[in-house]
């Protein structure tokens, strides 16, 4: 039995396994399937300023080794989260990180200010893959200056651990990572979904109502691994690795590349208790190689 505890900017997680925003609801939906006390933490569904209905159906398309989604951040807004959801989840025996999303800098700040007040939330994950409606809908996370602006604005008002979730739909992930780090982020989580598309050749139409959507699942793992590795070499901040993790072996690959912890996302749809299996698998790997602590393998890829 190794020591699986990891530390991300001052937050200790009992093990490196967490679940990704948008794939685990607010935790409650998984209580029938698993004991949340067996994983390090959960990144809950994105919270925006106001209620959002999300995009029209269809919102998903299965792809080879993955899926596309264009859910559109459907959620009931921060006030509902604070009043109705937080009281129900605050005492879960696992770390709860709130994913913060928005369409304007003001909206991100509004949400961050309100989440800052929640005693049992040790950190937020800033989702900068959202389109900036004031800049023609370009995602905040694709332009260094916009990524810097939103991180700086939230940093001013959010006093706890600020993690920023990076979009992979950029030319240089290291440039964005460095800018975000310089703007005051405490940690980086990457990657978010890759922009993709699916077509139905019988109807001759796109499968998704929004035409394009975000690709997730095993198909994106090689891209995610590459970006984690590049960012780890470029930036000193702790990294949470995300992208197609289906089992412990995948999780360990991310840790070797430089991730201190991982998020399991799409895999939860196929096996709702997979996150526990991954934690157990990491333990078995460490025991097999007689490694005492999970932290020891982080960034030890031999190149």
């Amino acid at each position, binding site marked *: 039995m190794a020591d699986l505890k990891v530390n991300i900017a001052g937050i200790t997680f009992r093990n490196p396994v967490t679940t990704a925003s948008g794939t685990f609801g607010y935790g409650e*939906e998984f209580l029938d399937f698993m004991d949340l006390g067996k994983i390090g933490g959960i990144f809950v569904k994105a919270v925006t300023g106001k209620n959002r209905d*999300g995009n029209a159906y269809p919102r998903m398309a*299965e792809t080879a080794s993955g899926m596309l989604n264009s859910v559109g951040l459907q959620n009931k807004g921060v006030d509902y989260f604070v009043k109705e959801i937080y009281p129900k989840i605050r005492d879960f025996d696992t770390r709860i990180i709130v994913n913060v999303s928005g369409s304007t800098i003001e909206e991100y700040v509004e949400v961050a200010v309100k989440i800052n007040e929640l005693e049992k939330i040790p950190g937020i994950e800033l989702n900068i893959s959202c389109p900036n409606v004031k800049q023609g809908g370009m995602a905040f996370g694709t332009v260094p200056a916009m990524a810097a602006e939103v991180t700086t604005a939230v940093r001013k008002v959010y006093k706890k651990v600020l993690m920023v979730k990076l979009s992979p739909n950029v030319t240089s992930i290291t440039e964005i990572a460095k800018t975000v780090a310089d703007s005051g982020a405490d940690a980086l989580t990457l990657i978010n979904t890759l922009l993709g598309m699916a077509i139905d050749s019988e109807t001759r139409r796109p499968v998704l109502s929004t035409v394009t959507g975000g690709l997730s699942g095993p198909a994106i793992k090689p891209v995610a691994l590459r970006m984690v590795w590049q960012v780890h070499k470029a930036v000193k901040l702790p990294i949470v690795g995300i992208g197609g993790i289906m089992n412990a072996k995948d999780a360990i690959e991310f840790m070797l590349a430089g991730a201190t912890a991982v998020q399991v996302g799409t895999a*939860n749809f196929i096996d709702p208790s997979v996150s526990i299996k991954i934690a157990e698998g990491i333990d078995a790997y460490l025991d097999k190689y007689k490694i005492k602590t999970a932290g020891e393998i982080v960034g030890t890829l031999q190149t």
Partner: protein
Amino acid sequence: MSSAKRIEDFRVTRNVALTPRHFLLELLAPGKLPGLLPGQFVQVLVENSTSTFLRRPFSIHRVNETENTLDLLVQIKGEGTRKLSRLREGDRLNLIYPLGNSFSLQKNGPVLLIGGGCGVAPLLFLAQSLCTNDTKVAILIGGRKKHDLFEIEEYRKCGEVFITTEDGSEGEKGLVTDHSILQKEKLAYSMIYCCGPDPMMESVASVAHMHNIECEVSLENTMACGFGVCLCCITPTIHGNQRVCVEGPVFNTKELGW
């Protein structure tokens, strides 16, 4: 009351071809089956299929509580369902279940069940449950031609069965809404339940609405998780977007604004 969700390995006890494109899988639970309600569905993991990544949802077609088996009625549509059609007795199949809500079981009948194509899947379980409650049941099934109809004898055990085929090879010719039992001035049913292609369900809903009869339909939206977290399967309702896998798949047509 819906039972807690679980993930379990079932064993195939029977795989029966009903038509060249439809088959019945009888699955044995590893232990005692939890309480299941008509309208609910399961999420099946298709293994060893490179082009099938996500689970596949199927309505619960029939339940045998004493034998602890449940049946799925499957239409072959793609690689995943084709793989399932090749399952043999003794093969393992992993299910997440029971999922979704259920049809309202009316105590006072008579009630009318209308099914089209593979939409009949949840209606047998519903018919059997209503029968057990001593509710008088009538069933109207529609298909393109005679060969698209199956398990009619099973439905006959629950109540009177009416049939339509588009080519007239069996029963009355036309769509389900063309059947003579729906043309009467007064329809004496306390509820109409319907499952089938969307245009069919919408036509039936119009008929129900015209006669001031409550109508429940079962929707089939594409889904990733099947248990409420991915938010992909939503359908618009008068109460905003609702998840077909949690607030559905059964909806009262008033809720849908049909």
